């Protein structure tokens, strides 16, 4: 760091100190809650008064406190959050697109090299379509392990619920399977008759054995099968509509939640989705967008009328709304009751 002429340091140290700002203004300065005029006045004083600089530096430099304040930058420039958000979304799309393209090529090579012996193995292991899904996913590189786990969990959940094929269609994963029309969905009779528990067991066996798919299957059939098993992705368009993608962000489908509502905030937690928008509009879906319920946050008879600009849910129960007037509304029971901060 370059030095400054010593006379500068001396003149800074000898600056005349005016009236000290009170604790409220110093606290407000640290929290950056003062208006521009007052902030400049306080800075003017701080540049002259070592004592007040010391006071301000003590609370201001507490890590947790200061870090929390840093979340909102003072002068958002071109790197402001909305731009970053869209840049991040575009970057994600590019990455996902690249990964999917590479995977397809990889799949094509693997499938072409599969032998007729493999086909026999598959036929001698009549398991549910999900088992094939699992096997297909298990062909992926190790990075795909998470997806495999998700598929496994979905299959287990299906097995545990004892749902049949039609009931299971309510799950986004199951619905996607039904639409693919791939040869893997054509389940052998034994598998169709098997109990859900047995199906789950078969799925696990299939995963353990890492059985490759039958030879000669076109990669076009495999790709949708892989992608449709991914967790749905959610986004809000620039005009405030909710959109969902079931194919890792390649295509987006507009979901109509409510008419004449512009959504500005979204929180997705597995199948649990919350969207908030203009005039306190808040909607919740606990089944990945199949059915929506409007939630009206009320505290002491006062309901939320301002636009919702932020929705955060750390889990299914605990969530936080931020209104355009910077009010914070909190729930700890999935929106049944609310508190204002």
């Amino acid at each position: 760091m370059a030095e400054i002429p010593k006379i500068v340091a001396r003149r800074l140290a000898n600056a005349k100190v005016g009236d000290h700002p009170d604790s409220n203004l110093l606290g407000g300065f640290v929290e950056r809650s003062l208006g521009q005029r007052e902030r400049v006045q306080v800075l003017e004083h701080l540049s002259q008064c070592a004592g007040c600089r010391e006071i301000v530096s003590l609370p201001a430099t507490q890590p947790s406190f200061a870090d929390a304040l840093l979340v909102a930058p003072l002068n958002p420039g071109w790197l402001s959050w909305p731009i970053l958000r869209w840049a991040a979304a575009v970057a994600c799309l590019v990455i996902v697109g690249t990964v999917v393209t590479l995977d397809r090529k990889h799949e094509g090579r693997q499938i072409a090299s599969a032998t007729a012996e493999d086909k026999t193995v598959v036929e001698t292991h009549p398991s549910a379509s999900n088992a094939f899904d699992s096997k297909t996913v298990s062909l992926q590189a190790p990075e795909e392990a998470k997806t495999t786990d998700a598929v496994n969990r979905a299959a287990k959940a299906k097995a545990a619920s004892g749902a049949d094929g039609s009931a299971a269609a309510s799950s986004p994963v199951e619905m996607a399977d039904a639409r693919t029309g791939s040869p893997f969905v054509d389940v052998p009779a034994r598998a169709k008759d098997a109990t859900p528990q047995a199906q789950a067991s078969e799925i696990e066996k299939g995963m353990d054995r890492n059985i490759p798919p039958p030879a000669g299957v076109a990669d076009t059939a495999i790709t949708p099968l892989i992608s449709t098993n991914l967790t749905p992705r959610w986004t809000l368009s620039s005009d405030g509509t909710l959109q969902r993608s079931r194919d890792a962000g390649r295509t987006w489908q507009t979901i109509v939640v409510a008419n004449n509502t512009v959504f500005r905030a979204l929180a997705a937690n597995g199948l649990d989705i919350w969207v908030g928008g203009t005039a306190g509009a808040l909607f919740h879906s606990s089944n990945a967008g199949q059915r929506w319920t409007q939630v009206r946050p009320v505290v002491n008879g006062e309901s939320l009328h301002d636009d919702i600009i932020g929705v955060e849910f750390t889990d299914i129960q605990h969530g936080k709304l931020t209104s355009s007037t910077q009010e914070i509304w909190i729930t700890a029971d999935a929106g049944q009751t609310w508190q204002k901060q």
Partner: protein
Amino acid sequence: MPKDSAQSEERFSTGLDSVVSELFQKSRSEEFGLTRERFAGVLQEIARKYLPADAARIEVRELYESLRVEELALARACAGGHEHAWEVFLTRYREKLYDIAGYITKESSAARELADSIYAELYGTATRDGQRASKLASYTGRGSLEGWLRTVMAQEHINRYRRQRRLVSLDEETEEGVQFATAESEPAIAVDPRVEAATDEVLAALPPEDRFVLASYFLDERTLAEIARALGVHESTISRKLDKLAKSLRKQILAALGRRGMSRRQAQEALDVDVRDLRVNIRSQLSQETGPPAFTKKKAEAPADGS
């Protein structure tokens, strides 16, 4: 009531009934036993404190709307001795008070002492005109109550430290060997008044934020990270700013000296002479070289050791 006061009170309340009512609802004042009139009075008191008497209505409105009214009502109710308000306050802030004190003092017994003393002030052990005077009555809702508590505690900690520094015993001084130390004398520097005037001119032209950064870094020896946190910007922003300032200050002072009739060479000499004199205080260095460490420095470390 004096005429000016009555006029400003009118200005801070006329046409703002709906705002005041809305804020009154939002503040949950009723829950803490504050009436609407009392709440409106508190708002006016705050407006008088921060706004000029001839402030426009829009300014008053903006100020009112910027206040943390819920915390303000809580603090004022506590100051008024409302039991439920105290329960809420203690639930929310008791632990935080000790945490903040712990961070500031870096030592558990000092932290407890600081927190207890602040708590006593908040509760209002002292009386004024027969009434309990609580420090919470001075909270005005300009920032969060927690932020205000942090600032109040930092202020109290620094005041204690200064008081402690003044109360060093003679025995301690003897132990430190201060009697052998050469008396510190101000270095005799004959600075050309034009250099001082030029420097003052250049510093005055800087934005207050730049002067704050310079003073924090070069006088207080704060780190880039600390300054960045205080201003809510990134460390690299402060680093770039300091570099730019350091490079431009000398040039600007030389230019200002030129405007005061000095040639380039004279101006450089005037600035360099001053720099040499201040940088190398040979007399002071020689006198301290074989002596004990400076007493003041040791004293400054005392509270951190908990002694």
